[in-house]
């Protein structure tokens, strides 16, 4: 059975290691914070100038001066630090953020990602996405395997304007976990419980590498 959004987040949370600095994008990536195991200490970065994102504030305690990159009211955790936007992207550019988790419209089998612009639609802007994908050491994409029309989002080449080149390392969808090997394509490493390799093959247009038995995810 295909994963729901929370299960995708839960699966991605297993990629997070103790001591990591992590930037979480809007949407499913934000949910990852809820599934980081006890004993795995990570610091969440918000690119608008905070290391140490905490949970949402209690009702009535929202602080307009304290928001995340999605403009939501948040809190901080002990050990947090504020800084300006240039230092924030400076630490991203310098590779100090260990892991970036973000959504995508399309991923190509060489690791290219498209997630900022759909021709013909009003373009809202790339925000910090281009900076993040150009510099992060490790990028995991959280997305649906197919678009609402049922078309694969894992492609031989992006059809939409790209956000960054050869940068995605791993993809977690409702159907599968895939590693990107830029020269060889998507390597299937896990499948959702009850989802067949055939279904994944059928919904993946980009080059797909399937070797041996592909284990099912366990929850």
């Amino acid at each position, binding site marked *: 059975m295909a994963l729901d959004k929370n299960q995708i987040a839960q699966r991605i949370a297993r990629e997070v290691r103790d001591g990591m600095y992590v930037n979480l994008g809007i949407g499913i990536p934000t949910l990852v914070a809820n599934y980081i195991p006890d004993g795995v200490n990570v610091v969440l970065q918000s690119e608008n100038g905070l290391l140490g994102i905490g*949970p949402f504030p209690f009702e009535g305690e*929202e602080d307009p001066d304290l928001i995340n990159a999605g403009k939501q009211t948040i809190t901080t955790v002990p050990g947090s630090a504020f800084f*300006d*936007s240039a230092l924030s992207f400076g630490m991203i550019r310098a590779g100090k953020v260990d892991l970036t988790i973000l959504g995508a419209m399309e991923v190509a089998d060489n690791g290219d990602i498209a997630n900022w612009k759909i021709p013909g639609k009003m373009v809202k802007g790339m925000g910090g*996405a281009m900076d993040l994908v150009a510099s992060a050491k490790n990028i995991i994409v959280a997305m649906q395997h197919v678009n609402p029309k049922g078309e694969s989002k894992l492609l031989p080449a992006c059809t939409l304007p790209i956000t960054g080149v050869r940068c995605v390392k791993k993809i977690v969808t409702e159907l599968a976990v895939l590693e990107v090997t830029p020269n060889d394509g998507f390597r299937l490493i896990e499948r959702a419980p009850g989802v067949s390799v055939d279904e994944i093959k059928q919904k993946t247009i980009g080059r797909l590498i399937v070797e041996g038995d592909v284990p099912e995810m366990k929850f």
Partner: protein
Amino acid sequence: MNKKVADAHEAIRDIEDNMVLALGGFGLCGIPENCIAALVEKGVKGLTCISNNAGVDDFGIGLMLQQKQVRKMISSYVGENAEFERQLLSGELEVDLIPQGTLATRLMAAGYGMPVIFTPAGVGTEVAQGKEVRNFNGKDYLMEYAFDPAFSIVKAWKGDTHGNLVFRATSRNFNPLVAMAGKITIAEVEELVPAGELNPDHIHLPGIYVHRIFQGSSYEKRIEQRTFRKKS
């Protein structure tokens, strides 16, 4: 070294049509509410605004868009603004979309006297069109130019009469960088104190970058996405 002016109207007195302004803030957080209101009242037109976002329909730079005062936005993200979309589609408004880190660093570069910076953001994308690409240590970078706004307008939590500024939490965001970049920089603050009252170790932006400062009033500090937990 007293840089105090009476209010937003005096601070923006010589901002004229068709100028390039940089404005601090991220979303509606840390935006110069008083100066934006004064610019709307003054009615200057044809402005180019360097600002990470463009406000919402009825707040922030959105108020200037409603009055058709803006000719061009230079931003990283301009969602959540119906009037913006209408003007953009009708061709009344230009927009130059720039990666957020590039925007921040081009402002900082101005304040550090650096004519250009190199960043990998946008390499291989349409953002790279027409730009110099250069490889350093095996990685490609785009050359991006420092901004050069005629006026910079920022909002701080506290400031002193020398123009030293202190920001609060994530309302710091682009404000110190915008402040650095302006040929003339205007700061509005929630609390203006005499020189000597701020701890010199706590100052986020030294007053040398600020030319005019005033204590703002009636801050609304609107929240764009109010998210919260219920107390259990």
